[in-house]
């Protein structure tokens, strides 16, 4: 995971809600995590996600 600082939250800005900052992370998923058995080994994906999209794994 990589932290990229706070950025305007797109879902609010795009709907005319103005500038609302939210922490932005680059989160890594393995192919197996995303696709289960249909996935492949040795392939990972990094996706930018705002903090409010994330859930506490606990």
């Amino acid at each position, binding site marked *: 995971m990589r932290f*990229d600082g706070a950025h305007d939250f797109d879902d609010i800005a795009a709907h005319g809600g103005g500038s609302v900052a939210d922490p932005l992370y680059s989160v890594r998923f393995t192919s197996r995590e995303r696709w289960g058995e249909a996935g*492949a080994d*040795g392939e*990972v*994906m990094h*996706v930018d996600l705002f903090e409010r999209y994330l859930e506490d794994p606990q």
Partner: protein
Amino acid sequence: MTADHHHPAELAPIEARVAAIESVLVEKGVLDTHAIDAIVQHFEDNLGPMNGAKVVAKAWTDPAYKERLFSDGTAAIAELGFEGPQGELMIVVENTPTVHNLVVCTLCSCYPWPTLGLPPKWYKAPAYRSRAVREPRKLLAEMGTDIPADVEIRVWDSSAEARYLVLPMRPDGTDDMPEDQLAGVVTRDSMIGVQRL
């Protein structure tokens, strides 16, 4: 030559629409034609993969620069004068003998303009955008780039905020090349990650 040779070729619908919008904006004084010409000129002359190639060549020859590139890609790239729209947050990812990086924009066409210019057509195609996520190794093989099974493929999904530049591995046999000559061996596709040098 036919009698109507001075008529321009028929415009595609999108070209006609853009031309109509442009002429209305110019007529109303919203747009200045010189400004449009300057912007088009800038994209033609100053933006393109040759900028990214200079970044890569410098990273290959200057270890301190390479370190700065990874700690703050945006600032290190700006050192060479490459900055601006669609490059506000630049992340540089390094290919190694065990890791191959691939850049995509699953949502649309996010791409690092200051270092690579405008994206190629295939980069915006739904097939590339979906298969880069679902089966990147197979996609790369079909594009002519075989990544050995023991090399991890890392796919980076570009966004409105972050843009990526792949630092390819320096090819064998280039030890004696000076930096400007090295930049000449760096291709656009290698900096997107669909090619190995």
